[in-house]
């Protein structure tokens, strides 16, 4: 009979049981790579203007050399007054921003206030430092709260930077060039949107990992304007998700009706119990 064992329930949270197996597999496969996680080779940018913050992002998600998602949403909702752009591993940015959003909504339900951007930054910093960079999330947080308009960046190891304009991702060098050239304090809304758009555009043109459309998110005291897409790529194809045709699209050539003669063989009536 098999030996009964005293079960040590695995703790909640991350389970590292497969780490040794993965290392062994990689050794065995001998040159062939283990499947790569979906990265968002990205250009994301943010600018603080007179009345708030403008965030911009491209929409391409790559998986090594293949474009995995052409309409990826990289600007994530954190709270009604805070949005976050994410670069790095797609799953990591999604999950991290989801957790952050949940934590902040618990807080606002408890206290009845809108969360501040510093709170989001602190929570993220603690979380990312705890995992020592294994969670590959480069995030740009932008929001408007009672203390003003803020733009922060959080790196995968938990480093935080507070800046008036910012670009991250693989296309950040090109985008930063445009931002450095065009940024002024107290920009107007249209100027800020145009600046972010051109910086993301520069990132798309110069970087293979960024492309397709540009999304813009404007956060002000009055509310949030999430424009998706702000600018569509010229190379958009005509493929649809659903192909629905109106009745009458195909012309009818001939029509022939044959009556089906049925013989009643047996008839049985059963009373329905309608109590």
């Amino acid at each position, binding site marked *: 009979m*098999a*030996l*009964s*064992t*005293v*079960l*040590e*329930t*695995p*703790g*909640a*949270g*991350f*389970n*590292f*049981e497969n*780490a*040794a*197996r993965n*290392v*062994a597999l990689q050794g065995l496969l001998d040159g062939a790579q283990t499947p790569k996680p979906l990265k968002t080779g990205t250009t994301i940018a943010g600018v603080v203007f007179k009345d708030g913050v403008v965030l911009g992002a491209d929409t391409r998600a790559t998986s090594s050399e293949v474009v995995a998602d052409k309409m990826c949403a990289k600007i994530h909702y954190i709270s009604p007054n805070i949005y976050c752009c994410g670069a790095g591993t797609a799953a990591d940015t999604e999950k991290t921003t989801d*957790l952050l959003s*949940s*934590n902040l909504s*618990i*807080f606002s339900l*408890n206290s009845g206030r809108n969360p501040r951007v510093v709170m989001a930054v602190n929570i993220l910093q603690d*979380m990312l430092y*705890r*995992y*020592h960079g*294994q969670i590959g999330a480069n995030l740009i947080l932008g929001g408007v709260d009672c203390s003003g308009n803020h733009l922060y960046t959080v790196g995968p190891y938990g480093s935080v930077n507070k800046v008036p304009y910012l670009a991250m991702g693989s296309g950040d060098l090109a985008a930063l060039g445009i931002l450095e050239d065009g940024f002024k304090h107290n920009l107007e809304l249209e100027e800020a949107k145009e600046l972010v758009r051109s910086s993301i555009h520069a990132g798309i043109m110069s970087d293979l990992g960024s492309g397709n459309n540009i999304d813009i998110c404007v956060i002000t005291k009055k509310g949030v304007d999430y424009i998706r897409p702000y600018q569509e790529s010229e190379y958009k194809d005509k493929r649809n998700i659903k192909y629905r045709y109106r009745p009458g699209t195909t012309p009818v050539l001939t029509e022939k009706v044959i009556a089906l003669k049925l013989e009643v063989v047996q008839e049985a009536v059963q009373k329905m119990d309608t109590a």
Partner: protein
Amino acid sequence: MHYEAVCKGGASTGYFVYTTRRKRIYKRNSRGLRSQLKDSVPVAGLCPQGAYGVQDSLRSGFTSVKNELLPSHPLELSEKNFQLNQDKVNFSTLRNIQGLHAPLKLQMEYRAARQVMAVRPIDSPFPLTFLFLYSPLSVLMKGASVFQIQRLPFLPSSNLALDTLRGSDECIGFEDILCDPGQSEVMGEPHMMVEYKLGL
């Protein structure tokens, strides 16, 4: 190991002595990096996991002494000890700010709220927080062993009291989403687990 702490109770004026004895934990038939609660040093298991005491090659791969001794992932140890280290830091900060009594009281409440090993598993009829809010501490100390929240070891526990004490009922993290012990697909054998807990 013996713990002894002598200090004044909160509302009452008497002294009380709080002692506990930690049982030696032998991990029978289980392997891997199981840190003792107090130490952060990994203790290697000696028995391989699987039926008939033989290494389960299909599930866990070939045997390797390195795998048993060293963590396979850089985060494994730090994650295992994370909550403990956080508690240590918090308690030492609390001690520095408010004095020795504050962390002692909290630790006592933590112990009572956890699924601890006790001589008599008795289900408490009163909610724990009610007791701590309205009873003087000295009464609680004498009656602590009776009012400990207990569940049989193979049953899942929501750890509600522990969560409330820690403040983690207002936070959500990866430990709430991944590997939820309430949804675990395996269950320990009841008889073995209870015998192990009671040290029989």
